């Protein structure tokens, strides 16, 4: 297996995530926390994020489905989601969460609905990209594998 090429692909995907604004410098902070004691820290945090954010988004979906919209509750859910986005450096998602909260403050339900659809799309795209990234990293293996001479 061409470990060098896999690493190159992973690096390229990672760079594109930053260049296209999906991730911000907070993601570097997570990478800095990864070490020999926690070799999969970044992937673990990201996995937790997608599990937790899916739960929050299901709550928001339910709240938006109700006839009487509780903007306070919607704002609380979105504050939690935004917080998690901030913690992993999910920049585009964070921006859209901010917009959703502004719509809540304005009690603009159509704005909330449109914004939430965008959040769902961004969430899905980010998840696919990060899953691909971590898959490439797993296939590439530790750095030592990348430098193993070919036979």
């Amino acid at each position, binding site marked *: 297996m061409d470990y060098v090429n896999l690493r190159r692909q992973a690096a390229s995907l990672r760079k594109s995530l930053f260049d296209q604004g999906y991730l911000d410098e*907070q993601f570097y*902070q*997570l990478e*800095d*926390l990864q*070490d020999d*004691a*926690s070799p999969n*820290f970044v992937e*673990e*945090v990201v996995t*937790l*994020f997608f*599990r*937790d954010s899916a739960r929050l988004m299901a709550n928001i979906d339910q709240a938006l489905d109700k006839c009487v919209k509780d903007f306070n509750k919607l704002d609380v859910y979105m*504050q*939690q989601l*935004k*917080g*998690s986005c*901030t*913690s*992993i450096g999910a920049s585009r998602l964070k921006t859209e969460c901010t917009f959703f909260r502004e719509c809540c403050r304005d009690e603009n339900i159509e704005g909330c609905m449109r914004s939430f659809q965008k959040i769902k799309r961004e969430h899905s795209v980010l998840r696919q990209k990060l899953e691909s990234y971590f898959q490439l990293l797993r296939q590439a293996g530790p750095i030592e594998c990348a430098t193993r001479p070919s036979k």
Partner: protein
Amino acid sequence: MASYSGGKSNGGEGSSHQELHVLAVDDSLVDRKVITSLLRKSKYRVTAVDSGKRALELLDTEPNVNMIITDYSMPEMTGYELLKKVKESSELCQIPVVIMSSENVPTRINRCLEEGAEDFLLKPVQLSDVSRLCNRVLR
């Protein structure tokens, strides 16, 4: 949600920090994991819980907590309310409490500091924030 216990201590490095136990309180799974890692990286023993209620339960049974770092916005009991309860307790009032929040609200910050919080950190909390804080608070 069950408690998430801190890691093992290292062998002789930073031995003074190995004695220091930080209680992290945050209802966010993601943030608990991150703050735990930040504190462990700074060589502290960490216990992370998901609510003010669980924090107080732990403080009742675990006497050796050197600092509490808590999120502000939590359901049922906010970080501010936890801070107040700690400061009102004769057994706990000496424990330094640090508040974290993703929102920069000056009235909130002032209220916490007036109530006795050692510091107020804006999220996302960085390793440099933790190092600076712990050096000052736990010196």
